[in-house]
């Protein structure tokens, strides 16, 4: 009885258990197995053999993997700053009082509601050369359609993908900045005005330092999201032409399917490192203390 009572009184110490059990079962346990697989030559069929770090050595001699690293990094370096820049500008604009503010915010966020897969299909309707919406628009407006094969060329296809990603998730970034802007006490700006500082000055000295938390969240989620990009590329270019827009995530899945289970898991480990290193560096740079909750 006493034990039961004691347990009941201290139940709060076990309140994290359901979450961690669930997560442990469906993520950490398979992950541990996955790490084991990355050290083998498993092909998904015959018995795997332990080969140590051979898969990681192979990775550094794999031309296709190098190209995919380039594509993935290009996509991330293109997306993350643009998302933050436009998300912040959008938030500054929509933070001001005007009629229909809530409506416009919802509309700007709306693209993020739709699955990237379906979004990819929609943009394909728009961008297809010779028969897409944009082609016909340019044609009807006599603006010339010569260079309209945006998706057929590796470089422009990557840029298009960055653009679509920024377009779709700018609302998401904006909401986080809006939240940051709204937590700034108005008195700070008043004090600033009394001092005779202009808009740009107050932006630089008050707004930006006060939204550091938003910047942190945005940069981290953007790095994670854009480095593991998958669906929008599958829907829009299928990684093509050739492998020219293939991302590391796509490569991982294709290797997994293509009898290279062990290697695929090793590449996934590399991707994990690629994500966590910039995140940690960024966190340290922005604020050493705040990361440890």
């Amino acid at each position, binding site marked *: 009885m006493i034990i039961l009572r004691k347990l009941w009184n201290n139940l709060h110490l076990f309140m994290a258990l359901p979450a961690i059990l669930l997560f442990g079962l469906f993520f950490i346990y398979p992950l541990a197995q996955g790490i084991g697989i990355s050290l083998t030559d498993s092909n998904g*069929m015959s018995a795997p053999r332990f080969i140590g770090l051979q898969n990681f050595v192979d990775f550094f001699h794999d031309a296709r993997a190098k190209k995919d690293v380039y594509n993935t990094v290009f996509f991330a370096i293109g997306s993350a700053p643009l998302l933050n820049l436009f998300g912040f500008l959008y938030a500054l604009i929509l933070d001001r009082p005007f009629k229909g503010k809530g409506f416009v915010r919802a509309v700007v966020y709306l693209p993020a509601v739709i699955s990237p897969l379906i979004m990819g299909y929609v943009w394909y309707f728009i961008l297809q*050369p010779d028969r897409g919406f944009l082609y016909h628009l340019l044609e009807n407006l006599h603006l010339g359609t010569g260079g309209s*094969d945006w998706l*057929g060329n590796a470089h422009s296809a990557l840029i298009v993908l960055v653009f679509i990603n920024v377009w779709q998730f700018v609302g998401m970034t904006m909401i986080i900045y809006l939240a940051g802007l709204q937590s700034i006490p108005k008195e700070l700006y008043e004090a600033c005005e009394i001092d005779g500082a202009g808009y740009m000055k107050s932006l630089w000295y008050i707004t930006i330092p006060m939204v550091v938390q938003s910047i942190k969240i945005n940069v981290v989620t953007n790095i994670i999201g854009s480095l593991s990009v998958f669906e929008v590329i599958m829907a829009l270019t299928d990684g*093509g032409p050739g492998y020219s827009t293939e991302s590391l995530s796509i490569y991982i899945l294709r290797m997994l399917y293509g009898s*290279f*289970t062990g290697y695929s898991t090793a590449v996934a480990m590399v991707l994990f490192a690629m994500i966590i290193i910039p995140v940690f560096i960024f966190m340290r740079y922005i604020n050493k203390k705040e990361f440890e909750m």
Partner: protein
Amino acid sequence: MRRKKLGLLLSGVMMLGLLAGCGGKNADSPNPSSSAGMAQETGPKETVKLKFFTGKVETVDLMNTLIQKFNSENPGIEVEQEYQKDASNVIKVKFASGDIPDITTVVEQDYIDQGKYLDLSNEPFWPRVLPAVKELSTDVKSGKQYQVATNVTMAGIFYNKKIFQELGLKEALTWNDFKANLQAVKDKKPDVTPLFIAGRESWTLGHLIEFLAHGIIKQDLGVKSSREAFINNESDKLKFDQENGPIDTFAKRLLELQEAGLMNKDALTATYDNQKEAFATGKAAMISQGMWVVADLLKISPDFQIDIGFSPYPSIQDGTKPVVLSADDSRYAITAESKHPEEAKKFLEFLLQPENLKTYSEFLKSPPAFTDVTADWGPLKDQANQALSSGVNIAFTDSPSGFSGDDAGRMVQELLAGQYSTSLDFAKAYKDAWDKAWKATHR
């Protein structure tokens, strides 16, 4: 305080409702993975659930109808269809995790080697199967049959007869004639694409390699030894990386067409749908496809039937002959680990009944592979027969499972995008990719 209690109550009720909701749904929803646990159910006879795993999107609706018929004729057995786009890849995950379908359309050499399929050699239906198809269904290593194909499919060049007539063109059997035909279309009908390539879909480009490049190997070695050469990766026979070998020649030919502007400008981004539409509406003079395209073409424009012409692929190298794909289609295999092999065989026999094969063939517009089935399978019957007699009949390629037709097609995309400086570089890269995948499963 009252409101708080209400809130707590509400969330409690919601949670209960949720649990009850999924519990209830779970009980009456078909749950094939737990068929072993059905034993405690009341009633003397337990229902056997069979999983049919397919990668053929075009037959999903038809198979559902056939399955319904089978289920009502066979109380006690319940077949359930599962379709996956990437079936040949997904089945790998299924084999690896033990979630194994009973009967499937996915048959690959690697899995045959792994003993994943049931030996069907002694089944009673073999005398009914066309000999050529039976040969293609025979495993070259063991001489046994682990799969049966219900149909034959063909692939070659489809052309627009009206355009050919107007310009006075004839079916081309040599590369120069083929190119001259395309050039004539380009010169005299500037609005029409001479050869429409659906390059966004890498499988269509993979087919070009299988039929044109591998076509040389297949006609040189014959059916049996070419299959052995592919399956055992006999590189001295395949000669993938040889200068002026099959791959090098193929790459040169394709680049010739691209340089001369004889294919669509968006060859790299156009889809299969675009290709069908362009061809069926007379905006493309020629396409490379298989018989599977015909039903869709007629859906887009029903009157187009009389204008469809079909011919073999021209020879791409001097001294070789034109080829036409004539291969086994709609294959079925029963898995070795199936818990209900007898029931699975029953379902297979049902599918092989002449009546059902007739329905299937006429729906797919594809000739049956069974001698006792007469199906009115399509408008191209006579033309197909003619093409079969004027070109060497070749089969699909047995590629290593890590180097699918999609992978090969992506390399052709790279070629068309100008990422290889010479055609020989392409041939070497092709051999490397093939060898790497072959080694992954042969060690």
